[in-house]
Each structure stands twice: as structure tokens, then as C-alpha cells.
């Protein structure tokens, strides 16, 4: 046939039937639309948390927060005690053996004053937390702690969290 009817061959048009491909494309599109679930933008507070040191010696019962001995850690640490109310709210916040602070902003101010002195030897913070404290309120305290800077300008990242027994609240 080649060469006998060159004009007829050149006039033929090859038409693809796109309807089937369009059907498939729409099915793929429907799948992706139905399974599309945008992930919410979440933030995080990153902490390095080695296992906590025991608060009481073996055979010793837990006592009131003010009587809790400072754990013997290898790093010099600041102890912060956060008690909880029965509904999970913050009961009181106390730095070391000081008086309870009135608010989180005051807590931030006092902790900042304590850690930002140039000759401060503290390297980590031990957070004693009431067992009923809700995660939301724990994060509010961690939020404050993560904003604290040492005199060197570095943020506080070494933190241990230990649980206060119910009897201590």
C-alpha cells in the first residue's frame, strides 16, 4: 500500500479516546480529595530527660514538699515544686525552699533572676510535679522553663521531672 495512496494516508487522523483516561484520572482525584487531611501545625518543647533520681532514700516515706530532700544528682540543680489541685490545676509553685510564687509570670521572673547570675553553678532543673496536675498545666510550667536563659545565653534544656506523691499535696 505504501506509495500507492500517499495522500489518503496522510489525511487519516488518529484520535485517542480520552474519556477512559479521564475517568481514571477523576477516580484518582476523588481518592486524594477524600483522603486529604492536612496535618495541624504543632509545636514542641524539646527536652533531654535522663531517668530521675530518687527523691527519698530506701525505707523512707514521702513527706510534705517542703521536707523533701534535694536529690543527690551529679549536676548542681535547682528544684522547683509544683503542686496540683484535685481538678488538675496548679496549686502552688515553689523554688527550692522559698515562698510559693503567686503566678507563672512571677515564677519566670524569680527563676530567671536565679539562673541568669554570671556565677550561677546550676546546670539543670528538677521539677517536682503533683500527680494530678494536668498535662496542659505541666506544659505551661515547661513553657516558662524553656524560656529561661543562663548568663551564657543558653537556654535551659536539662530538666528532670519527678512525681510528687498524693500525700505530699
Amino acid at each position, binding site marked *: 500500500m505504501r506509495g500507492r495512496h500517499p495522500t489518503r494516508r496522510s489525511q487519516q487522523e488518529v484520535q485517542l479516546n*480520552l*474519556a477512559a*483516561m*479521564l475517568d481514571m*484520572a*477523576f477516580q*484518582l*482525584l476523588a481518592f*486524594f*480529595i477524600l*483522603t*486529604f*487531611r*492536612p*496535618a*495541624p*501545625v*504543632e*509545636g*514542641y*518543647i*524539646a*527536652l*533531654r*530527660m*535522663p*531517668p*530521675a533520681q530518687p527523691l527519698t532514700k530506701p525505707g523512707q516515706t514521702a513527706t510534705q514538699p517542703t521536707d523533701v530532700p534535694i536529690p543527690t544528682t551529679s549536676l548542681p540543680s535547682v528544684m522547683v515544686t509544683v503542686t*496540683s489541685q484535685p481538678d*488538675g490545676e496548679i496549686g502552688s509553685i515553689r523554688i527550692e525552699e522559698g515562698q510559693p510564687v503567686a503566678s*507563672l*509570670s512571677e515564677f*519566670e521572673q524569680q527563676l530567671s533572676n536565679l539562673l541568669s547570675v554570671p556565677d550561677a553553678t546550676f546546670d539543670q532543673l528538677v521539677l517536682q*510535679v*503533683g*500527680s*494530678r*496536675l*494536668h*498535662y*496542659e498545666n*505541666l*506544659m*505551661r510550667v*515547661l*513553657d*516558662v522553663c*524553656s*524560656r529561661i536563659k543562663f548568663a551564657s545565653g543558653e537556654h535551659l534544656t536539662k530538666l528532670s*521531672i519527678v*512525681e510528687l506523691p498524693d500525700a505530699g499535696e
Partner: protein
Amino acid sequence: MSASAHLSEKAEPNLTPILDMVFQLITFFMLVVNFKSASLDMSLKLPVVGSAMPSDSPDRDVLVLNIDQDGMLHVYGQVKDAATYIASEAQTALRTAQLENPDLKFGDELPVTVVIRADRATPFRLLNQVIRACQASGFRKFQYRAMSGPSEAAR
């Protein structure tokens, strides 16, 4: 033009532009699809924290723990025993880490970050059980997830 010839004409729409558009939409959804979000339990109400950094880094070597307000661990929609699940994940992480560092043994620090996604009403007592199980298995790096919001000082 005769009447019979007019009737035999077919009206065929040009499907090429609509096919182009559909393929572009498919490409868009394929690019933005995030299968890792399947490990996140969206029913949890995370707390809102001011200084929570947005997690813009790629989530490599992470262990996501979704904890509801009853302290139950949710993994891909299923409730699992926290201690058993964390121990098995630690074993897997240890075997993976031993490929690069054969001297690593159980209890050593694992190069995996634990992502804690807990409901805002979870008591610390229940959360601490999970944290202690992680620490006992060798996890040291933690990320506490929250929604970014106004800081405490701005409230």
C-alpha cells in the same frame, strides 16, 4: 449542506484541557499528602503553649505516643499497652542502632526521639508512667507536643 449530512455530524468535546487540569490537581494532592499524619491521633486536644517551636524539621527516628486523658496509648487508632509497646519499639530501635554502633546494649541511650502527644487533661501520674517506661527502655530525648499560641506572659 443536506439534512442527512448535518445529522451525521458528531459533537466531540475536546477533553485534553480538562485532562490536563485533573492531572495537575492529582499532582498537587500527591505532593501534599502526608502519610505520617496517620500516626497522629487528631481526637486529642493538645494544650496551647506560647514558646512551642513549630516542628519544621523532618521527623526521622521518632516514636509518636498518643496518650488520652485516661492514660491509654493510641497507636494508629488502636489502644495498646504502653509498657509492652514501648519495650518492643525500643528493641526495634536498638537493633537498628546496633547496625551503626555494635557496642550499643540495652539501657544505653537510643538515637530516637519520643514525641509525647497527650490530651490537655491527662493527669501527670498517668503521663509519668509512660515517660518512665520510655526512660527505662533507653529513650532520653523527648518532644512534648502542643499547639502554638499566645505566650503565658501575653495572656
